[in-house]
């Protein structure tokens, strides 16, 4: 059979395909701005946040030599790491303090163990004054060329030498990378003590170095007999905690690049040498807060349904003029600033506030025992119910508007009582509106932050208040990210459960 052809003579199939592809491309181009916007402002930040909650590269990046050597150290053996480890730590810390990274690591580890922050700060100040200059002196005495950075540059261009001096070669690479990143020339900078320390470390272990440049060979011969520095003592002298097992155990515990530590912390657990354990009872807080957040959000949602349903019903059933006025009354607070409304509740609810004043004035409450209605859960529930009420009323209203009044009349004409007519005929049709409003209110409530902060006191605060604290105050972004991730997962799970039980198709916004 002959192929169908388009007007220009190409086969119809191909022509059709081309047209379709063009259409698809045009459609993509039309949604592209939104797609890019969503990607940049939503997907990437959330992905970034999820990543932060497990990311722990800082330990290994700051102390690479120490961490790789720590793998072979038995943390439960009850013995401090060997002297070699202190040499590696010295090299790592020297480079870290030069780049001002050591205090960052200190702050990171301080989230796990109190006091590490100052250990790193103190040691960072002292590490440049350790007595390692004796290595520098001894090498330069042997051959003044050691002092010349060009000797070093030449030395590590030679692969054989770099193979023989592994630690020194790696250290030299890190040093020259750092200098290059600072726009400086490794061939022009003074050779520092820590490089000689690394060199001595390698040479005193290299037996019978027969290859390589003569300067290296002659140094290798005598390096074993050099005067040495006890860096273990030097560290213990800078801060006694270095002679303490706990610090080393912490380092080992938090050395992996990815850690479940933040997630464990956010459910009141912690890593320990014996595995995972609960936090001490006086530091457990997050499970309580998650539970409270969920429970109070449910209560707020319930209050909104109870208060919102009759209003939505009125809105849907009153004559248009009255309904519009009522709608404006619903929307007016919706348009008012959140902070203003919350502060207004403060004025209303406080002990010297409007409600208490009225109660005292009409004699229901004596002046001595005014009601406590704020800085507790009650205050949070009242204020948040008020703030979230429009989110419940509006979807309910738009669903109820679509329910024809004739159904109720039909039910009544067939003999139903008012209640039966409402409960069996009207209510089931309004359920999608309740569903939509409930999801909206619950999800908004679960992430609320500013209202609980202002009126919540100690018992009425939510998990988001802790997330905000860790973001802006304690700077423990990893923990904040883990808490946020858990909150996100809870919401998704509840959404899934809702879909299974009620069915998401039963949710209508109008």
């Amino acid at each position, binding site marked *: 059979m002959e192929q169908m052809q388009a007007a220009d003579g190409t086969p119809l199939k191909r022509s059709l395909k081309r047209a379709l592809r063009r259409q698809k491309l045009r459609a993509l181009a039309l949604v592209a701005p939104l797609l890019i916007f969503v990607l940049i402002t939503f997907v990437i930040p959330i992905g970034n946040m999820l990543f932060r909650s497990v990311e722990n590269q800082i330990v290994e990046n700051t102390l690479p030599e120490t961490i790789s050597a720590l793998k072979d150290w038995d943390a439960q053996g009850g013995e401090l790491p060997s002297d070699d480890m202190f040499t590696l730590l010295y090299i790592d810390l020297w480079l870290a303090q030069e780049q001002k*990274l050591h205090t*960052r690591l200190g702050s990171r580890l*301080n989230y796990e163990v109190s006091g590490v922050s100052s250990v790193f700060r103190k040691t960072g100040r002292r590490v440049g004054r350790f007595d390692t200059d004796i290595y520098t002196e001894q090498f330069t005495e042997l051959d003044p060329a050691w002092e010349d950075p060009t000797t070093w540059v030449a030395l590590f261009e030679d692969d054989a030498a770099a193979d023989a001096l592994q630690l020194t070669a790696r250290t030299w690479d890190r040093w020259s990378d750092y200098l290059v990143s600072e726009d400086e020339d490794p061939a022009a900078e003074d050779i520092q003590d820590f490089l000689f320390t690394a060199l001595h470390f390698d040479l005193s272990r290299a037996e019978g170095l027969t290859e390589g440049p003569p300067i290296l060979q002659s140094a290798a011969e005598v390096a074993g007999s050099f005067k040495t520095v006890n860096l273990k003592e030097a560290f213990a002298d800078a801060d006694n905690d270095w002679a303490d097992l706990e610090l080393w155990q912490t380092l080992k515990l938090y050395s992996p690049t990815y850690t479940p530590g933040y997630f464990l912390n956010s459910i009141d657990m912690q890593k320990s040498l014996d595995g995972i354990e609960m936090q001490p009872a006086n530091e457990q807080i997050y499970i309580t807060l998650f539970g409270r957040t969920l429970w109070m959000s449910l209560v707020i949602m319930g209050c909104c349904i109870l208060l919102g349903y009759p209003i939505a019903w009125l809105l849907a059933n009153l004559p248009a003029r009255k309904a519009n006025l009522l709608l404006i009354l619903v929307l007016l607070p919706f348009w008012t600033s959140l902070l203003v409304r919350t502060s207004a509740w403060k004025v209303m609810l406080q002990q010297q506030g409007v409600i208490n004043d009225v109660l005292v004035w009409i004699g229901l409450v004596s002046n001595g025992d005014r009601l406590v209605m704020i800085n507790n859960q009650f205050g949070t529930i009242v204020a948040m119910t008020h703030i979230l009420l429009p989110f419940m009323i509006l979807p309910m209203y738009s669903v109820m508007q679509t329910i024809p009044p004739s159904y109720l009349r039909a039910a009544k004409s067939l003999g139903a009582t008012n209640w039966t007519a409402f409960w069996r005929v009207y209510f089931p049709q309004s359920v999608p509106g309740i569903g939509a409003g409930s999801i909206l209110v619950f999800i908004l409530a679960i992430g609320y932050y500013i209202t609980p902060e202002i009126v919540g006191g100690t018992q009425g605060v939510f998990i988001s208040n*802790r997330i905000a604290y860790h973001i*802006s105050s*304690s*700077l423990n972004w990893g923990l904040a990210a883990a808490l946020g991730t858990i909150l996100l997962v809870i919401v998704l799970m509840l959404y899934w459960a809702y879909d299974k039980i009620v069915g998401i198709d039963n949710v209508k916004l109008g």
Partner: protein
Amino acid sequence: MKLTKTLFATTALGAAATLVVADGHMAGDMTLVSWGGAYQASQQKAYVEPYLADNAGVNAVWDESSAEAVAKLRAMNEADNLTWDLVDVVASDAIRLCDEGLAMEIDHDELLAPAPDGTSASEDFGDLIVSDCFIPQIVYSTTVGYRTDAEGWSGTPDNICAIWDTENFPGKRSLEKRPIGNLEWALLCDGVAKDDIYDVLETDEGQAQAFAKLDAIKDQVVWWTAGADTPQLLADGEVVMGSTYNGRLFSLIVEQEQPVEMLWDAQVFDLDGWIIPAGLPEDRLARVKDFVRFATDTQRLADQSKFISYGPARASSAPLVSTHADLGIEMAPHMPTDPANAENTFLYNYEWWADYRDDLDAKFQAWLAQ
């Protein structure tokens, strides 16, 4: 086609606006970060306005973000887009910014002006230079104010332990919702000697002791988070006594004439000052250095106390403290640094808190939630 034209025009305008902003720093926009409110106003009047009068090309832009300065600077650092030139922070934040490498380490003697008598800046500021990155401006203290018309009181509070004396001074109290300061006061009022407090607080038993002491008044406490809370609560009569910054109490008592008095006992000394963000480009750094040198000299720091009752951080500024710019009253007796007020002060241990704040904050929050 009209639409297209409008679109083009808008885009072109937008592009032009971006250019102006991008070029703004060269034109002399200097972004200063501070706390807003009366404190920022005092800085504006005491040294920003005089500086701008002498440097017509420079324009100062305020950003009231000091409360979130550490988090924002970290975010700017990660995004590699530093928009701030000079940041006002409390000392503990300065230490953290320095630790994180987000603030620039400075040589105080080289950067800052010496005192009029030639004393070097580092000596003039003395111990108040608590970090290599920190340029102190003022000393403030967190202290207690109380209502003079509280019902059912016998006597008037004369020391910090009045907070715990619910028998003689019944009524609600407001305390800051953080462990710092409160734990020290608790131990102090539980009989621990002032010099031993941090040693005691370092141990589990000491922490338990402090929390137990706070337990005694827990149901009487309203916890505040913003400096304006306590003055408001005191003015409303919601609490009968409460802790806050001395400058806030000063304006409540002197400017708003409320029936409130303040206690100068065991007030917690703290510092506020500038840091220069790390990684400023050369031209902006040079301008900021010039401004800081001017803004922290002896006369300027003394001038600031005309507008707010915080003590100048330089020793040489103290004798120059004069009268309030509007009210005309002597400011010296309202300064936390005034000898009569500073008879029994409490020095806040920055290093100690840098180590223990994460741990104790978790414990404090867990205690609050119980």
